[in-house]
């Protein structure tokens, strides 16, 4: 692994950013250490748990497996870009109301995966929700309330016409 620093430019949550980092540094570490976006979590560091899920040019990826060089010029979306406080994204609000977040450690990745699922498939049935979230492990909830939250986000977005916030 080369320790020489490279200039990497990308868009994070809609904002242009530039960092000087070793090209093989994990996107996860660049987000957390260099950009101080600690919403994205590390659960396993080997692509199993999905706690580190972000969108890379709209695709759901495990940021622990992505060398930052691969993200040069890309658009990255993290949980911090979904929405906040008064402007919660529909999935954030639904997770809050349904009890989809307990310890909250899987939650950022789970939310990014849920928002991604709803973008690809605005009306997923339960089987599609289970499949869409099967790369994101949750040890606390037993998943029932996460499924319910995604279903509620579907009905709230269809009732409101569109989801609030970004994502």
């Amino acid at each position, binding site marked *: 692994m080369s320790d020489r620093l490279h200039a990497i430019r990308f868009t994070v949550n809609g904002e242009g950013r530039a960092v000087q980092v070793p090209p093989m540094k994990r996107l996860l570490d660049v987000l*957390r250490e260099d950009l101080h976006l600690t919403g994205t979590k590390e659960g396993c560091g080997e692509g*199993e748990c999905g706690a580190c899920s972000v969108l890379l040019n709209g695709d759901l990826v495990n940021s622990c497996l992505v060398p930052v060089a691969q993200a040069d010029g890309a658009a990255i979306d*993290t949980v911090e870009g979904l929405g906040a406080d008064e402007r919660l994204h529909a999935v954030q609000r639904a997770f809050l109301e349904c009890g989809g977040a307990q*310890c*909250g450690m899987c939650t950022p990745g789970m939310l990014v995966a849920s928002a991604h699922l709803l973008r690809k498939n605005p009306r997923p049935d339960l089987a599609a929700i289970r499949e869409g979230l099967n790369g994101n492990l949750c040890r606390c*909830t037993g998943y*029932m309330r996460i499924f319910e939250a995604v279903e509620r986000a579907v009905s709230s977005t269809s009732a409101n016409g569109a989801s609030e916030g970004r994502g």
Partner: protein
Amino acid sequence: MPQEKIVGQPMLRKEGVAKVCGRAQYIDDLTLPEMLYGATVRSSIARGRILGIEFGEGIPWDEFVIVTATDIPGDNEIALINHDWPCLAAEFVNHPEEPIVLLAHRDRHLLPKAVAAARVSYEEWPAVFTIEESERGEPVVWGEDNVFKSFLMEKGDVDAMWAGADLIVEGDYATGAQEHLYIENNGAIAAFSPEEGLTVWGSLQCPFYVHKSLVKLTGLAEEKVRIVQVETGGAFGGKEDYPSMIGAHAALLAMKSGKPVKIAYDRAEDMAATTKRHPSRVRHRTAVTRDGKLLGAEIEIALDGGAYSTLSATVLSRATIHAGGPYFWPSIRVRSKAFATNCPPHGAFRGFGAPQSLFAIERHMDHVAEALGLAPDELRRRNFLKTGQTTTTGQEIKENIDLDALMGRALKESGYHAKRGRFARQNAGSGMKKKGIGLASFLHGSGFTGSGERYLNSLAAMDVTTEGKPRVLVSSTEFGQGTNTILCQIAAETLGIDYEAVEMGPPDTSVVPNTGPTVASRTSMVVGKLVHSAAVGLKQTLLTSGLLQEGYTTGEFVAAARTYVAQHGALRAESRYQAPPGVHWDDQRYRGEAYAAYAWAVYVAEVTVDLATCGVEVDDFVAVQEVGRVLNPVLAGGQIEGGVAQGIGYALYEKVVLQNGHMANNQMTNYIMPTAEDVPPIHVFFEEIPFGYGAFGAKGIGELPHDGPAPAILNAIRDATGVGFRAITLLPEDLFVELAVREPVAEAAL
């Protein structure tokens, strides 16, 4: 139902918005100025003498802070029950992964190389790795006989009872270790200066456990040690004792370097080095009459406690008390032992010994039923404990309980009888997919065992901020179960103000009183009650001060509280634990009121077993329980569902492979927990019978759901295949050995 407006309602999780916005700060999200990163050099062997430590080539060692046992200012021990667990191995190692040397450096990414370059040489000694090897005492690796603790619990005349039996049924059962697999690994940050003392921030359950341990380790005065819990990403018991270890390690590095030090384990280290659920072996011998009355039993329990005694004595105690299940035994004898092995110490895990012994009794009850020609639900019904009867410890059940009704509800919600008949007919066909349905009924004691709550002598408080906002001050911590939310609900309801107006004080030992550890399903029932009393005190003070009149609004309350603080400097009320009346416990004979209250449940699992692949799928799950008053239906439901999913993992997925004491599958790629596609629909039902001495009628809830799934699922597999498996974790390869090698046959009764 009572008329409360906040308690019993699905109030939103207090820290929920921070969590869904990704703003909640966990230990690895925090950085202090000039902070170093710490790492641990661990034993590569199971047992032996340390001969030397060599700091190998290619590492700028002079840039590293290096700590060994000789740097420990106080006692080299993690203080729990006994004094046998070293913070750092000095001369001997007793298990793989035992910590020996600590390293710290500014560059986090340099540490793995340095750990690899620090080589410890050993004189290797023989070791024991299983209950059986430890039992034989070849060699003795702990104390006189490898036994950490043993209990003998006896009720009635067991020896005379056998003569009256129509049938005697025996069975051996076993359970494996289980990894907590909280999604956030263990981590801690420590900072030290001679003036300020030591502060440790950590992902942890029990701030005062860490406090006690670090006072002994550092020799600092109690007020010079401060422990702060930060947002904790799941625990399940796994952050009950181990944070004292990792907190101690960070503290030693910080004290030596004078800089803040963070230690954050990665997944592989967390899985290999931290505690797991105790493996068990349970033997049953049961006497019954022809008409299905239990006469008596002899039960032998053995737990593998790992290399140091840690919490094994209390885990064994709970296993012992729960061994008879929710049944009336005229006579019973339970002998139990926790053995030392040269595996990393086993520790607390949701259920704390009860899942092990309840797995055994609930599998065994199905074998007894079969031997008698009775349906599994019928045998249980004929023996359920009733109000006024006594438990295995001789405790009279004074609560109003109705296990028959719980069973009825579980059978109805699951369609048990209709499905059982239908599956039997379908399974007679030649299809390779066999369906089955099974149940388990069980109990879980709320709070510390016996005199435990009295010894803890917990203190809770409430105060108000200068803005007049009431705060709950407890050492009970939030790690997903909902502590913050339910305690604020209780406080708000009692104060008669809006839920949003109440906040939690910081979980910081320099601010909050010692409310005891956040374990043993005690937070809602025991701590909730203390918060309730403190809130009553706060309200009384304001009402008698004349600043507040009955019929007040939230705004008026806050204004009055603000004025009171301005006038008097502070407004605070405290409440100390008082045992409910009639709670007596004899620690020597293990007789009396083991728990102030019990939660009760009947769970039903429906499975499909594929004879071609030997795979098992859980298709549907019904969980009916009585946990007293439900304080928050969303959080309570989530506790049950999460516990059931962990129980499914325990039964069918999660096998800890120990090789010479070392966890061989310490990765999420080869230690498999249930995913979103693995869990069945989990239907949760509560029967609510308020408990007179819990906050608004609440009893314990957190651990209960881990007790039932494993036996219910294995009973369902027996229904599907005719084979009664007696050990978990039950993987497809284990099914293959039984199902492929011989035709499925109903097993012999005896």
